[in-house]
């Protein structure tokens, strides 16, 4: 159980003359919630998108459960057990909440041809309903996702990332634009999901980018601080809070 789920080695990505990510390395262990913080423009999202196959890194190696996934597409990564959310809302607005959740895992059921005339719910209704209850969105389950409030859509968005029971979930600013009371709710949900996932056979590991310091410090087991495309520090929340360099560069005071 001590082999890392995600291993990133010396990741580099430049846009023209600007080096967005310059040699980032870190590991995420099974069951770990790994936070990534840093000022705007520090390369967090570029690092994220490289890991997720959205952009191709210039150099470096990314491993998932020991397998090299550096050149894989987002589809292939998802099939191997990587879930994600985006910085902005990305639900399917014209589908119901329940269908949003079902479509989020249906490609993991059977083959393309076996799905052709298969039942529309792909046998995933029970699983979708369980997540709907866990996320407390039962009252809007049959509404179109596009008609919900921002906070409700954010919950649907996060729930979708967990439908296919991924080994690793990357969450890009899950609290952006969310009111303070829901921030607490999201934190509780992620802790719950981390626990239930970790107690199962598969390791439930998360990587979370977030600007809300209280949220990150409370939720994450370890935190990586990125500054100017490089890693300034990696440590437990207590270590990060006590790190003088981090305080000067980012946390302030």
């Amino acid at each position, binding site marked *: 159980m001590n082999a890392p789920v995600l291993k990133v080695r010396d990741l580099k990505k430049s846009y023209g003359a600007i080096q967005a990510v310059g040699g980032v390395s870190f590991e995420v262990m099974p069951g770990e919630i790994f936070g990534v913080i840093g000022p705007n423009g520090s390369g967090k999202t570029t690092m994220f998108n490289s890991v*997720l196959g*959205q952009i191709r890194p210039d150099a470096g190696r990314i491993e998932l459960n020991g397998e090299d996934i550096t050149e894989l*597409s*987002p*589809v292939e990564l*998802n*099939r191997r057990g990587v*879930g*994600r959310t*985006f910085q902005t809302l*990305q*639900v*399917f*607005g*014209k*589908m119901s909440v329940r*269908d949003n959740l*079902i*479509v*989020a*895992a*249906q*490609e*993991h*059921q059977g083959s*393309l041809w076996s*799905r*052709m*005339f*298969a*039942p*529309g719910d*792909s046998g995933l209704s029970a699983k979708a309903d369980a997540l709907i209850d866990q996320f407390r969105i039962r009252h809007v389950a049959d509404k179109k996702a596009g008609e919900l409030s921002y906070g409700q859509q954010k919950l649907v968005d996060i729930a*979708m990332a967990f439908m*296919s029971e991924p080994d690793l979930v990357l969450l890009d600013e899950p609290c952006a634009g969310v009111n303070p009371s829901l921030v607490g709710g999201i934190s509780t949900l992620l802790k719950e999901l981390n626990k239930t996932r970790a107690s199962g056979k598969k390791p439930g590991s998360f990587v979370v980018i977030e600007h809300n310091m209280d949220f990150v410090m409370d939720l994450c087991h370890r935190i990586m601080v990125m500054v100017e495309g490089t890693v300034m520090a990696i440590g437990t929340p207590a270590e990060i809070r006590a790190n003088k360099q981090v305080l000067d560069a980012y946390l302030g005071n």
Partner: protein
Amino acid sequence: MKKSLLFGLAGLALLIAVPPFLKSYGIYLFSTWLVYVIANMGLNLTVGYAGQKSLGHAAFFGIGAYTVAILMQHGVSFWIGLPTAMLGCFVIGLVLGFPALRVQTIYLAFATLGFNTAVWLVLRNEEWLTGGTFGINNIGRPELLGLSLESPLAYYYFVLGIAVVLSALMWKLLHSPWGKAFTALRDNPIRAESLGIHIQTYTLLSFAIGAVYAGIAGALFASLVQFIEPAPFAVGTSFMMYLMVVVGGPGYFFGPLLGTAVGVLLPEWLRFAQAWYLFVFGAAVVLLMLWLPDGLLSIPDRIKARRQARDASAARAANAAKLGVQA
């Protein structure tokens, strides 16, 4: 779903009961309408559900019609011609899907438009194969289990039967995981990818399946009119087909039924306006697009949304009153 089924069955009952009372031109019009409904059902999949802006649908309509006509000219049965047309359209549809993997929206529309023009030029210029501008005439009608389909009414019922079967298949497909994948591809391809939906595969399939429907429609069209030439398969028809899908309501299952009625039957009913009929038709389309950009079938959704909004504001007002706030 139950409501849709009832609506479908009621419509079907009318389509079975009414035509025997029509003159042969009326039967011909209804047959033409059904042929275009089949083609537009396919286009609705490509454009309405999968969100791929295709302006080349008439090319597949033409490929289907010419495949059957040329084969029948050489003594091959309609029943061999039809699957050949379907297979041909599927393969060429897959190929036409490839530009959609690189470009979208208006750029894709132009790419498919170019394809339509190229196909039309082949139909017009390759006289040895297609008869060029003279076209192909004396196209026969098939027999079905020994029954002749020569009479307009018999052929109408034949086309209706095929339309019902193809509708049922489309319904099943759209309510399967594939239907959800197509919608996901239309609404948000990047999110779809991150959920393991292979968007390239579904893009190509949406073109190929849409093309098969157009191919079947083309084959039926050839036997219906019994004389084909390149004109009905030019880009103008692709525009009309796109218009019919949009007017009916893209992404609504019954959209093509209504939209095609507007595109095929309405101009006929407007003949009383004589020289003005195209003007009236054009004005009607402009008004429809202004008021109902999501098509005719968005009307029930709009009414529902309005009722929900009214209920919600009533509930808010009641709540406010309960809290002692003056409205």
